């Protein structure tokens, strides 16, 4: 067991963890932040996407110990200070970018990372960026639309109908 200290969604936390504790386990089991989901065991699905020091990371690919001293942000830390949905979250709701909701936290975290790097991505760039995220419900159509809308682009002309 080793002690780790990190900032998670703006709050400092210190916990003792085993060396093989994955970041997913740390967030879900130790901190009870269950919005970070585990959808696979080969780092393919992206349901566990979080931000570590501002970078998009699949939490299943790192040990909690590796996050010692880091700034960590999860889906639970994305809403506005007043609790309302942030721009990306709101766009997902507005454009029906989620169904069962399981992949959604990872999608939102990926979208935030993309828009930070590329404020006005093209549709092709959005689709390419989502290469590491699997959704089984939506067919991605409305996820892509939501991300374009969150970037401030007009998607009304490319409505499904």
């Amino acid at each position, binding site marked *: 067991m080793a002690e780790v200290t990190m900032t998670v969604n703006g709050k400092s936390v210190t916990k003792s963890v085993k060396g093989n504790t994955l970041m997913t386990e740390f967030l879900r089991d130790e901190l009870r932040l269950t919005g970070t989901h585990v959808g696979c065991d*080969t780092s393919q699905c992206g349901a566990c996407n979080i931000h570590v020091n501002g970078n998009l990371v699949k939490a299943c690919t790192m040990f909690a110990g590796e996050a010692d001293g880091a700034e960590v942000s999860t889906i639970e830390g994305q809403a506005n200070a007043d609790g309302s949905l942030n721009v990306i979250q709101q766009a997902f709701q507005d454009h029906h970018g989620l169904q069962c909701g399981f992949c959604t936290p990872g999608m939102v975290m990926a979208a935030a990372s993309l828009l930070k790097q590329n404020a006005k991505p093209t549709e092709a760039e959005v689709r390419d960026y989502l290469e590491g995220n699997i959704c089984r419900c939506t067919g991605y159509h409305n996820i892509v639309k939501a991300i374009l809308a969150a970037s401030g682009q007009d998607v009304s002309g490319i409505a499904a109908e």
Partner: protein
Amino acid sequence: MPKDHGIGASQKRREDVRFLTGAGNYTDDINLHGQAYVYFLRSDMAHGKINKVDTEEASKMPGVVRIFTGADFEGIGGLPCGWQVTDKNGDPMKEPAHPVLAQGKVRHVGDPIAAVVAESLEEARTAAEAIELDIEELPAVVDMKAALADGAAKVHDDLSDNLCYDWQFGTDTETTDKAFAEAAHVTTLELVNNRLVANPMEPRVAVGDYSRANDESTLYTTSQNPHVIRLLMGAFVLGIPEHKLRVVAPDVGGGFGTKIFHYAEEAFCTFAARQVNRPVKWTSSRSEAFMSDAHGRDHVTKIELALDADNNFTAVRTDTYANMGAYLSTFSSSVPTWLHGTLMAGNYKTPAVQVNVKAVFTTTVPVDAYRGAGRPEATFQLERVIDKAARELGVDPIALRRQNFITQFPYETPVAVAYDTGDYEATMAKMEELMDIPGFPERRKASEAKGKLRGLGVNCFIEACGIAPSNLVGQLGARAGLYDAATVRVNATGSISVMVGAHSHGQGHETAFPQVVAEMLGIDESMIDIVHGDTSKIPFGMGTYGSRSIAVCGSAMVRATEKIINKAKKIAAHLLEAAETDIELKDGQFSVAGTDKSVAWGDVTLAAYVPHNYPLEDIEPGLEETAFYDPSNFTYPAGAYACEVELDPETGEVTIEKFVSADDFGNVINPMIVEGQVHGGIAQGIGQALLENCAYDENGQLLSASYMDYAMPRADDLPHMANYTVDHSCQTPCTHNPLGVKGCGEAGAIGSPPTVVNAVIDALQSGGHKVEHIDMPVSPSRVWAAMNG
């Protein structure tokens, strides 16, 4: 102006807020005080005789609470199959035992042999490695035709062979043979409907709990139908009376059919919690899901289509081998029969349709319903053979379909179903308009200028949804009723909880269902909440599958709401001192017809619970009603789909350049949700057509057991938005349910695979390649091989 309220409004989903903020409550988010963890030791061989499972050393490992093996389940029921199919010789299908943990033999990779319950998952997994196994490997049974050959190894030693049933349905052989003998043209096609894995993004989870205080078990599970699990597990497996068993399916991260079934892990956790007197939790890994979730499809088919000299379809005959896997999963037997055979008429007035199905046991994971369940398999073969016939006859595939459409309704098919309504010409015309069919030659030229081949594929389909009249399915072998139920509980201050038997795992019931009640009562949706997924809270419902939620459970909700309105009008009449027949309900106000006298919804609901001024001599206090709804027929959504693909002749790579779906779902409650359902279904259908394949080698090893090997569709595999339209403007309302709805959940997955493959073949033919068929997934290597073979 589009509606923003009630039926037909694209209301934003209320459930999204919790999912978008990480506040969803999925089964793996549930942790109970003192819980232990289970790890299943699973077979790594396809077929073997268990000589010994020695747990002695493993039991001494740190943290181990108890290790269970098949011996612990002696005398306890196995997992039941919910549908009895009768062989064409009159015998019942063969139903092998399906123990919770393997007994005597292992029959597929992933078959659970032992279960280690420990203080932590890590300790359980470590201890499992110390279990000593002596399993004698037996020959794998993988190929279905080989499984039926003389001398084939038997999956179940107590059965005479590997044939579960040989089923025949529809037009009799003499009539069918005569139609083929008299045909001017016969087109034949052999094809495979590839084995798939449903892959909801949330792996299955089960948490069993037991209360000694009242001898009550609770199971939290990732299920589409908690009451079905309670009934099957309580009555058939563990012998727990239903009033002592509660099943909770909280937020469920997608189902697509594979979370309908009752699984060994659910029974195990419920059983083990009683045995060790503490909660027991199992969380599937994705790799484990690939070898323990029921798979889908896996049919090998030969279809023949007979046409007369005028190109009218005169007969269809189909012979299918359907893989059951090693055991009969809950609804497995019904998929290749009643959910497949009954759809073989398609949208066409073919007078003779005969369906033959051999269901086969193999040493593979059980196969059961997956999005569409039987209907994609029917549509794929029919629409592929029609396309081939059009090419052989040199006629336009759209015209050939159109000429043979059913145009008069109701229509009784030769395969036992009666389509109540439809307009196949309307969806075809809508598809042609949206697809810009006349512009295709120009688009093909543009592709060819880039060195690509371009193909156009079309497809029509019909499905039977809203499953189904209980008396009918009972005659067909179902061991369950297929009604659904809803309780509308109006609170004193006028807010409403609607407890429904349907389960929402992505379909948006929490938003769409209140729209119906709000419309009926004229109140705001925000006053209405939906409660689902907990057998201790909801009436006995059959759950969500077969695109049935709004058609069946929604109808129950309408009936219960009608009862509420009737009672509320009595109360209002009393308050207004008027005759009940004069009371009108509009916009949440009860008024006396022709007067300005009225009382508000809230006045009436308060009177029901504070009955000081109330007709107590005539009606009871309170305002809560339940209705069970059993439909009189299936619903028959139908549509016409088209797509254009570009094919790179250098690599065999296929991309989808344009896609249109024109569906008839009858009336639509929330268009936004409906379109989302179609998008999702189409993505799964395109996945089947181009990417996904669950593959076994000849030794029965599962080759595609992770997302490294099983190609899930990703965002860049699907058509771009500007070239993609899903339309549901053609609406022929269902004639026999109160909402006129048909269901939309499976259409995309049914309609899209043949559309894509038809387009690929068209592209190849345009390049001079005489390729008539490529089995799915139409991968670059298969396309390249077909071009260069």
